[in-house]
């Protein structure tokens, strides 16, 4: 008996044929060519409705398929129907013994058909599952590789800079994600820090993330201003950005020597700065990258005093929900940052807080990324800067500009909070610092923006010193006469000229030194316990 098994794909053009069936078709010498029965052929409908064997010799049906089958020598058809679907068919030619099919043969074939149909159905399903499993496995493998490749686009290690600590955490919601962060050392010794978030998740976001990172790095090679870097990145990204996608991105440039951090923001969550006075948001205006061409980005700056921490994060943190659908939120984040001392331990602290909030069953909704930048207390390395065992509380530069003394004054006050210094004396220190800085900016540097003043705050066990250096060199500064209020009120002395008088009244000691290029004023305050402290 010859057996013809027509692949189901040929029969109904719907399901793929099992490979083993195809092998039977091609290897066996007794297999004749299969005849295709199209779904619109009347024979197809007959096969679906007929029960048992169809004898082509006695069949009266106007059908192309019947004619082709007869021409091919087919005598019997046994439709394999399962759950109302034609899953296969047995086509038999004449018996090899040249005998007619007996009624037993036909009964046997009729009984075989439903079992064969069920078996074929199961085989098809198993095959489809195998194909689907292989497809998923291949996709999973591709995603795993994509995830590995994406991780190579993130920094392999955080920067190592004396006096600073950097830490980062990156956890995509899927195998790959749209969040990213980067640390890029600039040629002038500064450090570019970037955190970004591409809309959407998964592979599309990961691809945009990769190109954004590359573009930002390329921009940083030529530009060192964060606003300019974002502007350039936006212009490059915009033409090729897929519809409905954009990138929020925060770009900061840190000068590790002074603690000055310039930043610009393309629609990303504002970073938070933890200072001794509390937590402040570092806001700057700017549209996300890739949305519109020709965007400009507001640029701002802050100063990180020793112990200050800047925390950058993606919205996956603050927009995480607990089982009650309550959101983690900004207030909670600010509270947590305010009560922690910062550094890399802050990462684990916030991660634990997030997991405690969301619960163990949390299905991460969005990528979560943190970057932490903290300035440490730094021991003095300059033996000439004061006592050998002194500690530098802060050291920085400030541009010489009218009104610039106020920011310096506040920053020095923050630095001094690290030592035991009564609040009333801090007010005196602030006035002394402000007046000294005003003098340095005005008389030493003539308010030239390209000539910054230098400030160093240091303390030892006995005293606190603030050094203010301008670039006026060893040129005597004209001294105002000692203020005489009665003379001023009478108009015989200028109403001005209080600066140096106030400085001397505020400090415990005052030293002035100069080199051919620099002029330095040292303000000295005795610390608590010193008998001569004011």
């Amino acid at each position: 008996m010859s057996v013809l098994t027509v692949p189901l794909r040929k029969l109904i053009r719907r399901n793929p044929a099992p490979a083993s069936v195809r092998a039977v078709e091609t290897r066996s010498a007794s297999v004749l060519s299969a005849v295709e029965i199209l779904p619109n052929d009347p024979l197809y409908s007959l096969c679906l409705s007929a029960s048992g064997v169809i004898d082509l010799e006695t069949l009266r049906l106007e059908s192309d398929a019947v004619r082709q089958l007869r021409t091919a020598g087919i005598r019997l058809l046994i439709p394999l129907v399962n759950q109302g679907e034609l899953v296969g068919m047995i086509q038999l030619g004449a018996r090899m013994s040249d005998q007619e099919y007996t009624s037993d043969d036909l009964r046997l074939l009729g009984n075989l058909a439903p079992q064969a149909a069920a078996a074929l159905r199961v085989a098809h399903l198993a095959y489809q599952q195998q194909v689907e499993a292989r497809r998923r496995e291949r996709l999973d493998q591709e995603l795993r590789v994509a995830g590995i490749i994406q991780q190579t686009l993130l920094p392999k290690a955080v920067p190592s800079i004396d006096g600073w600590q950097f830490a980062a955490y990156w956890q995509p919601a899927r195998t790959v994600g749209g969040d990213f962060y980067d640390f890029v050392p600039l040629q002038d010794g500064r450090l570019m820090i970037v955190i970004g978030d591409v809309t959407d998740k998964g592979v599309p976001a990961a691809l945009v993330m990769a190109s954004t990172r590359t573009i930002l790095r390329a921009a940083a090679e030529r530009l060192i201003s964060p606003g300019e870097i974002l502007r350039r990145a936006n212009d490059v990204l915009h033409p090729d950005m897929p519809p409905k996608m954009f990138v929020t991105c925060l770009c900061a440039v840190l000068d590790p020597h002074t603690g000055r951090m310039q930043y610009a923001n393309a629609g990303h969550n504002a970073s938070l700065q933890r200072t001794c006075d509390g937590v402040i948001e570092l806001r700057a205006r700017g549209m996300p990258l890739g949305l519109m061409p020709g965007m400009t980005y507001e640029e701002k700056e802050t100063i990180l005093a020793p112990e200050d921490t800047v925390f950058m994060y993606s919205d996956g943190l603050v927009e995480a929900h607990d089982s009650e659908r309550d959101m983690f939120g900004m207030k909670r984040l600010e509270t947590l940052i305010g009560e922690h001392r910062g550094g890399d331990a802050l990462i684990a602290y916030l991660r634990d807080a997030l997991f405690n909030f969301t619960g163990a069953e949390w299905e991460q909704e969005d990528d979560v990324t943190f970057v932490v930048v903290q300035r440490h207390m730094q021991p003095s390395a300059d033996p000439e800067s004061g006592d050998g065992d002194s500690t530098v509380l802060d050291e920085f530069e400030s541009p010489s500009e009218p009104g610039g003394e106020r920011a310096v004054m506040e920053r020095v006050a923050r630095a001094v909070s690290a030592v035991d210094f009564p609040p009333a004396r801090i007010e005196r220190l602030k006035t002394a610092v402000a007046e000294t800085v005003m003098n340095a900016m005005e008389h030493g540097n003539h308010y030239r923006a390209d000539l910054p003043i230098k400030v160093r705050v240091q303390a030892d066990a006995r005293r606190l010193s603030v050094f203010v250096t301008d670039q006026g060199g060893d040129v005597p500064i004209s001294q105002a006469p000692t203020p005489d209020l009665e003379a001023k009120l009478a108009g015989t002395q200028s109403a001005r000229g209080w600066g140096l008088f106030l400085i001397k009244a505020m400090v415990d000691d005052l030293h002035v030194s100069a080199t051919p290029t620099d002029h330095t004023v040292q303000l000295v305050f005795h610390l608590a316990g010193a008998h001569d402290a004011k």
Partner: protein
Amino acid sequence: MPNKPFSASLREPVMHLNKGVIIDLHGEINGTVEVALNAAYDRAEAEDVHSIVLNFGGVDYINSTGIALIVGLLARARKSSRLLIVFGLSDHYMDIFNITRLVDFMNVYPDEQSAVAQLSQLQ
């Protein structure tokens, strides 16, 4: 931290407290506020009052140039035989007013209530 903008405004409606007016000061007093501060003082003088009261309650920073501006106002007041009264100074700036001897030439009070009470006694 952005500085608060300076303002110097006559208390509205202008209260002729026994021929005195209050100028409420806000922000920081430095060289850049000279015009605004003198303009407020001009308006107070135009009210033909005997006393001008400066409220420092909203002032968070005074530098040496700001001290010079206050000296200038004090000189004007003395020249026109007006009394310059001050209240609302923080402890630190009270300290500065002592060091500079400004307290020797103006009436300084801790708060508005005591400053107004003083005006009543000047009747």
